[in-house]
């Protein structure tokens, strides 16, 4: 009875794979069912946003940011506009800033719902996906009313927002909050305690705080290890210092903690939304005093905000022209994904999907 001869298997996953949420490819070496090495291959969705931006003025770049993280276009719009405003020292009218904050938090809810639905779909639960997309549809419809687009909103401008909310729009948002609060409890009951689900994700894809920081993780990927780091709280921008909200943290640093955090973040976003709608001024300008040609002074600036996926940053190098000399986006999906090869070694093939899904990437942002 000699030993069974085994052979290493090289398996290619993607770029056309339903669980890679876009065109992400990973080459894995398998020893039986166990992954011994994983090599991500990116760039299938690289459009050269940063290069294109060098020949566009800042207002023209805004729609390109929509297409980076297309699940969270509002926060991407914001980081660019905010960076330019900070460089030029522009004031944004209060109503405009409230509108921005409201759409950003709605976007966070929508983005986490997409994640929740698709993640459960990835690991084999069909119906949560339908629930999540039903509720996200409400937000998408509201955004459509506001900006005229369902996904790529191009709603924000340097110095304000493109339009004020149409009549009755804010009431619809107001009505959505209690509805969503009820639904999120329902979803929590439906899935979070499910034994099959728990056995699939508890203790999977685990890392500690030190590792998370070393890899520069941000968002729920960082907070799941117990590090309380949320730019809305740590480096307050917009009006976040006016509202009460918690920054939930996990303690185990596994996929289950990330799951719970994102659900909790939906609740916290709804809490912020409720306060924002109460405090919002009745009327007022939606566009600040902005020079006709937007030319940030020569120099550079790095500005970062908290997107649903973590720290999205915008590094502008300006030479005083209408176009940026160099525009670099710090994309949270790209940075967060770096830890994947490390997490996969020693895991089974089925866990590849669980772990990849748990990081919550959008390939448009990974590749930019």
């Amino acid at each position, binding site marked *: 009875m000699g030993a069974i001869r085994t052979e290493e298997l090289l398996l290619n996953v993607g770029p056309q794979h339903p669980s890679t949420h876009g065109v992400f490819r990973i080459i894995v070496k398998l020893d039986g069912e166990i992954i011994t090495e994983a090599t991500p291959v990116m760039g299938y969705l690289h459009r050269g946003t940063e*290069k294109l931006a060098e020949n566009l003025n800042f207002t023209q770049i805004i729609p390109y940011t929509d297409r980076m993280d297309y699940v969270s276009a509002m926060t991407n719009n914001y980081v660019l506009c905010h960076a330019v405003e900070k460089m030029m020292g522009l004031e944004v009218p209060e109503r405009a800033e409230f509108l921005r904050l409201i759409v950003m938090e709605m976007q966070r809810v929508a983005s986490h719902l997409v994640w929740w639905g698709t993640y459960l779909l990835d690991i084999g639960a069909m119906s949560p996906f339908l629930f999540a997309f039903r509720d996200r549809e409400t937000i998408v419809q509201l955004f459509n009313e506001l900006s005229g687009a369902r996904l790529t909103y191009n709603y924000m401008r340097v110095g304000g927002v493109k339009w004020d909310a149409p009549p009755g729009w804010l009431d619809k948002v107001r009505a959505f909050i209690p509805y969503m609060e009820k639904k999120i409890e329902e979803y929590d009951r439906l899935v979070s305690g499910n034994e099959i689900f728990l056995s699939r994700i508890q203790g999977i894809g685990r890392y500690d705080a030190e590792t998370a920081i070393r890899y*520069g993780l941000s968002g729920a990927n960082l907070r799941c290890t117990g590090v309380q780091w949320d730019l809305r709280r740590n480096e307050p921008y917009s009006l976040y210092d006016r509202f009460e909200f918690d920054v939930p943290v996990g303690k185990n640093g596994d996929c289950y903690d990330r799951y719970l955090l994102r659900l909790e973040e939906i609740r916290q976003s709804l809490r912020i939304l409720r306060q924002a709608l109460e405090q919002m001024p009745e009327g007022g300008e939606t566009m600040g005093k902005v020079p006709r040609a937007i030319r940030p002074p020569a120099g550079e*600036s790095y500005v970062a905000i908290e997107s649903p996926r973590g720290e999205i940053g915008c*590094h502008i190098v300006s030479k005083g022209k209408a176009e940026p000399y160099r525009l*670099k986006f710090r994309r949270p999906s790209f940075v967060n994904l770096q830890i994947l090869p490390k997490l996969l070694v020693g895991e089974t093939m089925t866990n590849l999907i669980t772990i990849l899904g748990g990081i919550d990437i959008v390939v448009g942002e990974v590749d*930019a």
Partner: protein
Amino acid sequence: MSEHQEDTKDVTSRETGEVEKKAEGEASEAADKADGKVIEADKADSEAPVDKVQSEAAQVGVKAEGEAPAPASEGAASEATAAEAEREAKRQAAAEARAARAAAKAAAEAGGAEGGAPAPAAPAERPARAPRAAAGAAADAAPAAPKEPSPLQPQLDAAAALVRELVDVDAIEEAYVNELGSHMPTLVIRPPYLRRTAELFHAHEALGCSYLRNVSGVDYETHMEVVYHLVNMASGQRYALKARADRSDPVLDSVTPVWETANWNEREIYDLLGIHFKGHPDLRRIMMPDDWIGHPLRKDYEPLDPEV
């Protein structure tokens, strides 16, 4: 026959259409050019005073004004030269003003001698304008010279002192607070000391920058620059480290062994800007295909195959 006529008519109309289009194109081009001129004129307006009696004092004032913002972003090393330039400008402005006053006096005397009515009007104008120009030069230079130090200047000084003490006296090329970028304390590190400075920032408890949030590469056409944005998560203090590399053969030490975050970021910079990172564990292209030629984010990049 009629058909033929229609045909010719068609042709002519098409031709006129083309002619019209062409004319339109030219017109818009001309308009573009005119626009450009207007912008240039605007620029000139904003940069040069419209004062007709452009004494040299005023010119010096303009020069100082034009130079002042550049050193502010360039940093401490050139700040000294900027201060010198300002002093020089002030000196010259003062000299000019003196000269103008003397000239005015002489002219007034001459005017008095002539006794003509219109003559005093001219000299009266001259001394009035020359001091104003001089004052303008002084006013332009004045706010720049005793400029309020940034609230983060002590933070920068402390970090710079640590680097000088624990890495090398020569490690810092420039140290300045980038006021435009939310007062970011910025250190430009000489490339040979980059890795050790990175280790210091990561490990030293007074700096404690365990989190590297962003790495950017910039092609400045004269040189390449890599910017590392750091943050101390406990205190919230932020820093930017910079390293400059020769453009023809840009090589820098990799900081991936210090912060794993840098891994893919450096690969991206290598891919798009062609900066090599010594000591990187896996320096391959990441966005472009492996057989791609050139580095697309370089300012002088030209695609090998424009059809792609």
